[in-house]
């Protein structure tokens, strides 16, 4: 993002300490206008803490958050173009869904009765709008949370695990809604454990591990940085293994489930094929493996230092850095 218009989210050096515990350790991330940005990490990685700091709910130990150039800790006006929820959306259980939305609209300086009807229709809660929220299912509260967020007509939507508690149809509809909102120009930052969902929805991701960002950037770049992974079977796998290890341009050679696995680009694969034939190890199977976001997520968030190659690849130094996707398979 260039120019004078500040990005929807700009986080720099964000740290949150709870005594000896480091919940967030120096997070830097930028969400550009129009991004559907996935914020990924295992449980306890500090995602929710980070989202709370972005919304001004938690005071960082160090670092800054800027939403459209404004600090949410300095003024609530920083949230004017922002809506969403952290963890499960929460409401006053003794009031109806509609009354809760009326309260929130009033807290936005808006009486908005017609807009509330539209929001309730959008999440298909119109028929339960007069019921107390205390009687709502988790999924219904999740949908009410979306309605409450949409009431603000946000430019930036922050959603923490938005599909949690929804049935399969609800999860599908949530994806469609986020896609539709993004198509209408809304910037979305969502944390999720559903990696297939993130892969389908998001164009950029940050992957966090133990409070630190181990990758931030486009999903496409992440996959490209991982290199292409192949599986190989030959008439003489032992010999083929030696050939692979000796072949220039072929990396991360290992045996996985009785088959040889390696990473290489297309020219290197062609040369390897020739070398195998010359070595008398005739190819019976050579198949490219699709690297999923899930594979990359695990390689970045599990084990020690596994993600270093990918993280450095982000900086353009590791176009052929070996993916460790197979390590988890």
């Amino acid at each position, binding site marked *: 993002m260039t120019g004078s218009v500040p990005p929807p989210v700009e986080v720099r050096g964000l740290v949150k300490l709870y005594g000896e515990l480091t919940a967030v350790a120096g997070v830097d991330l930028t969400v550009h206008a129009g991004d559907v940005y996935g914020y990924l990490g295992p449980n306890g990685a500090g995602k929710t*803490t980070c989202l*709370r700091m972005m*919304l*001004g*709910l*938690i*005071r960082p130990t160090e670092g800054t958050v800027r939403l459209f150039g404004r600090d949410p800790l300095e*003024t*609530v*006006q920083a*949230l*004017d*173009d*922002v*809506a*969403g*929820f*952290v*963890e*499960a*959306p*929460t*409401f*006053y259980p*003794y*009031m109806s869904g509609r009354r809760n939305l009326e*309260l*929130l609209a*009033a*807290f*936005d*300086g808006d009486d908005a009765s017609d807009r509330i*009807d*539209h*929001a309730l*229709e*959008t*999440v*298909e809660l119109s028929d339960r709008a007069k019921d107390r929220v205390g009687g709502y299912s988790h*999924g219904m509260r999740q*949908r009410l949370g*979306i309605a*409450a967020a*949409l*009431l*603000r*007509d*946000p*430019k930036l939507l922050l959603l923490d695990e938005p599909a949690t508690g*929804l049935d399969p*149809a609800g999860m599908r*509809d*949530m994806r*469609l*809604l986020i896609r*539709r*909102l993004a198509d*209408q*120009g*809304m910037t979305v930052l969502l944390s999720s454990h559903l990696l297939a969902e993130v892969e389908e929805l998001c164009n950029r991701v940050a992957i966090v591990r133990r409070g630190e960002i181990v990758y931030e950037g486009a999903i496409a770049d992440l996959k490209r940085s991982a290199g292409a992974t192949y599986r190989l079977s030959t008439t003489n796998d032992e010999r083929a293994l030696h050939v692979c290890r000796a072949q220039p341009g072929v990396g991360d050679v290992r045996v996985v489930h009785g088959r040889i696995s390696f990473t290489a680009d297309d020219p290197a694969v062609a040369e390897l094929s020739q070398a195998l034939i010359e070595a008398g190890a005739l190819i019976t199977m050579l198949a490219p493996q699709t690297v999923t976001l899930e594979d990359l997520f695990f390689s970045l968030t599990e084990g020690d230092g596994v993600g270093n190659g990918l993280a450095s690849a982000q900086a353009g130094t590791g176009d052929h850095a070996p993916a460790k996707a197979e390590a988890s398979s």
Partner: protein
Amino acid sequence: MSSISGTAEGLRPGAGVAGRARRRPGVGTVYRWELRKLRYQKRTYLGLGAAAIVPILFVVAVQFRHHRAGGGDFAFASYLTKSGLVFPLVILLFGAIWLFPLITALVAGDIFASEDHNGTLKTVLTRSLERWQIFAGKALTALTYAIVAIAIDGTVAVIAGSIESGFNSVQTLSGSIVSAPKGLELVYLSLLVYLIPIATVVCIGLLLSTITRNSAAAVVGTLMISLLFQLIGVLPGLSATTPYLLSTQFNAWQGLLRQPIDWSPIVRAAWVCALYGLPALGTAFLVFLRRDVAGG
């Protein structure tokens, strides 16, 4: 069943809150909605119901006692059968021990802690209100509730007492007799003065509600602090502290029932209560302003 149908017309994603014609919400918005929220909560009616029923029970008890023995050994006791206007004053005497602190604490101790319990603080803090506005609206609501409870109690006591003993003239603590209308005026002025220590209890309740983030702990804690003051007041050797105890200030209204009016206990109540209440309120304010909202 499809559960989310997409963006309906009427919502304009991307327009932003600032993009709509609107006024910025303020303390008044929070105050109105906090009062509205009280209407939905059982504890509201529990406290106000107690404030209304205690005078009625008291009148019934006095009626039985009058038939069996008559009189009593507390201030105004001998006048209970002569004027109904004495009833609210006697209830103020006894209510200071735990009744009014408890009724006050029911809302003051709960008003922040229940937001923590429901996890709703994060919901309201991510709208368009500054934290201080939310604090001010809630503090005003807790005070309003206490005022309404005292007003209900006093009014019910005047009506029930007048039905029992008549709307008659009252003898002041100086021995002079004042007319019934003047007596009524003194009763309501007494209620007003009574609100000084009650406001301090509100402040203590708000502090405990903010710090403990636990409704039961804050309500009980507020009551315990009130009872602790009562206990210190009766401990031998600590009589020098009595004029400066919160519990003593609950009797300041009695200065109004002397002729001429004795303002000294009322003035003392004002500054003593300020010494207890303002630090509690200020601390609650700062804690609320700076606290991390990590739960819910």
